[in-house]
């Protein structure tokens, strides 16, 4: 446990130090990469609540990620077109303010998770995996063929949304914002795991029958966790769309779901900093191998295989040992 805490602190500091160093050396792209790591890690933190704490293997989290992204675009696009968001029943203006967009993305992700989870949690195990995957695909196809908001072309938001008191166009400031959100989410995730709800979720994951016999309905507990998980991933989607100033159905594709899951597993399932370590390693591999060969994904696949087969517990598990944080 102590070893893991030290490792977590080291990861948190490294993720902060790299962009600061990059700023000093005039390498703004490294800051962009670090921002990407922070945002993808946030999506992973969301998934980790379902996957690690709740034992729900969701292969459809791209749905929430994409919905968060589209929530951002739906709110911000009318502003750049100088049009109201809607005129009926009341006129509502769009917004370029991040706090409002974040709230909307979180709510949208949570609501989508409520709908998808309510149906999917009627099943379990491998059914659950396939059903979440299928629901994700359903939204993906819908986004492609629905002409509003650009369909397959996606939608560009030419200027990054604003945050009171910050210049978000400045890469380092936007990074700081994302890093802050990630840290808050990590803190929340840790508090949640130790709370009464976290205990009930652990019970529902490890022994649903027993939980029911204790008066705790596993379905309700898991669904609540799934909604929280979807909400956090939705928030990550809004930030990701802001990073790229662009949203498209690609965010909803099942490869995205697979990649978010890869971050979590690479880092270590149910480890607090697992998604951060996993996202960082993934981005590093992508850029390092990508510079190596056109067929870099082949090596990425082999590396992943090796990690699953021989380094169980992911990066953090391998370095910090088997113990899981419970005290």
């Amino acid at each position, binding site marked *: 446990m102590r070893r893991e805490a030290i490792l977590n602190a080291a990861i948190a500091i490294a993720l902060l130090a790299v962009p600061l160093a990059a700023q000093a050396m005039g390498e703004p792209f490294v800051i962009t990469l670090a921002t990407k790591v922070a945002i993808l890690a946030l999506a992973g933190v969301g998934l980790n609540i379902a996957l690690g704490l709740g034992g729900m293997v969701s292969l459809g989290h791209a749905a929430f990620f994409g919905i968060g992204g589209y929530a951002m675009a739906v709110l911000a696009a009318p502003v750049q077109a100088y049009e109201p968001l809607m005129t009926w029943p009341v006129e509502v203006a769009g917004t370029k303010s991040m706090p409002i967009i974040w709230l909307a993305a979180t709510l949208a992700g949570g609501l989508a998770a409520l709908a998808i989870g309510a149906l999917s949690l009627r099943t379990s195990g491998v059914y659950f995996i396939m059903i979440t995957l299928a629901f994700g695909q359903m939204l993906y*196809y819908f986004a492609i063929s629905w002409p509003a908001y*650009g369909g397959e072309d996606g939608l560009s938001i*030419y200027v990054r949304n604003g945050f009171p008191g910050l210049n978000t166009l400045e890469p380092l400031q936007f990074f700081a914002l994302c890093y802050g959100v990630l840290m808050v989410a990590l803190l929340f995730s840790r508090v949640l795991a130790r709370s009464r709800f976290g205990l009930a979720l652990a019970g529902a994951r490890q022994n649903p029958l027993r939980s029911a016999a204790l008066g705790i309905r596993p379905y309700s507990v898991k669904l609540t966790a799934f909604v929280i998980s979807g909400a956090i991933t939705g928030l990550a989607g809004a930030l990701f769309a802001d990073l790229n100033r662009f949203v498209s159905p690609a*965010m909803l594709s099942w490869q995205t779901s697979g990649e978010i899951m890869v971050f979590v597993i690479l880092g270590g399932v149910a480890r607090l900093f697992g998604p951060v370590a996993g996202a960082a390693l993934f981005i590093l591999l992508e850029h390092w191998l990508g510079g190596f060969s*056109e067929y870099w994904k082949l090596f990425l696949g082999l590396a992943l295989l090796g990690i699953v087969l021989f380094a169980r517990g992911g990066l953090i598990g391998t370095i910090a040992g088997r113990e899981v944080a419970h005290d």
Partner: protein
Amino acid sequence: MNASKSLLVAAAALAMAGMAQAEPVKVGMITTLSGGGASLGIDTRDGFMLAVKRAGNPDLEVVIEDDQQKPDIAVQIADKMIQSEKVDLLTGIVWSNLAMAVVPAATAQGKFYLSTNAAPSALAGKGCNPNYFSVSYQNDNLHEAAGAYAAKAGITKAFIMAPNYPAGQDSLAGFKRFYEGEVVGEVYTQLGQTDYAGEIAQIRASGADGVFIFLPGGMGISFVKQYADSGVGLQLIGPAFSFDQSIIQAMGDAAVGVLNGANWSPDLDNAANAAFVAGFAEEYGRLPSVYAAYGYDTANLLLSAMGKASVTDADAFRAALREADFDSVRGEFAFNASQHPIQDLYVREVVRDGDILTNRIVGVAIEDRGHAYEDECKM
């Protein structure tokens, strides 16, 4: 030297003596080199690099990266090229959705973008920009060529079909813009669809005398094979993307006789084109596609502008680009006010030439065509 991120500095030996401005230009090429759409990006790159190699201009440096056909990756590569590599100019994107993700932000940061392929209507009309040039066409052009020629080819009752996404919707609109016959059926398919039995049955039942399709990549291959096997046998017409060099080999004889709207063909009769086709075949051992042709033209346009102005002087460089003073493989070539080409549009037919399939021009569809969105461009 690695493949996907190659820094290519052309040999100095052939440096042109008469070059006034020796200001180096750094070009960032973002294109698709992996995944299902890789063949298009590879042709774009190879066409572009062929021109660069032939020019042998030591002041031109090209950085190439793979966008994996993902918009978010494309945006990040663009950020990287602009922020870290400090490129002067971007090019190479194949897909409209990726272009929409990258181009507005890049031009807003004062970088030039030369399109080797994707040219969505949003960038031709309201979203036109002084730093954005489309060297290829405007997206609707090849559909317009097919539409304009369809009646001439005896198609009076057309069944038209495209995937249900923005480019598909634009394509059907483009076809109808110059089509003089009647549209008896209009169907949107799913993007990525592989089985067209249902649509073919509808075609058979529609009473049409010809079929227009826009089904890029693997979708087109699937459709044409199934269509040929169905025995429906009505004349097929489409844009060149669906019947291009890289694709028709996989269709086999099913593609022979299909008409397609284009602005370039390997048999187009001009000296620049003959040299290009022969050079490409010699260099890479295959016939070039339209993507290769656009890549080649884009590089030559850039080289011509480099000979006239320094890239550090954006206005002068832009003016130099607008002159389009290069030998296009498409023959006559000029830019209109929105900086899209004014060019002849043709219709080609797929023919078998010995062992391989290729395209031959059968007629001119529209002469000196610009595009439909010129009035919307306020520049």
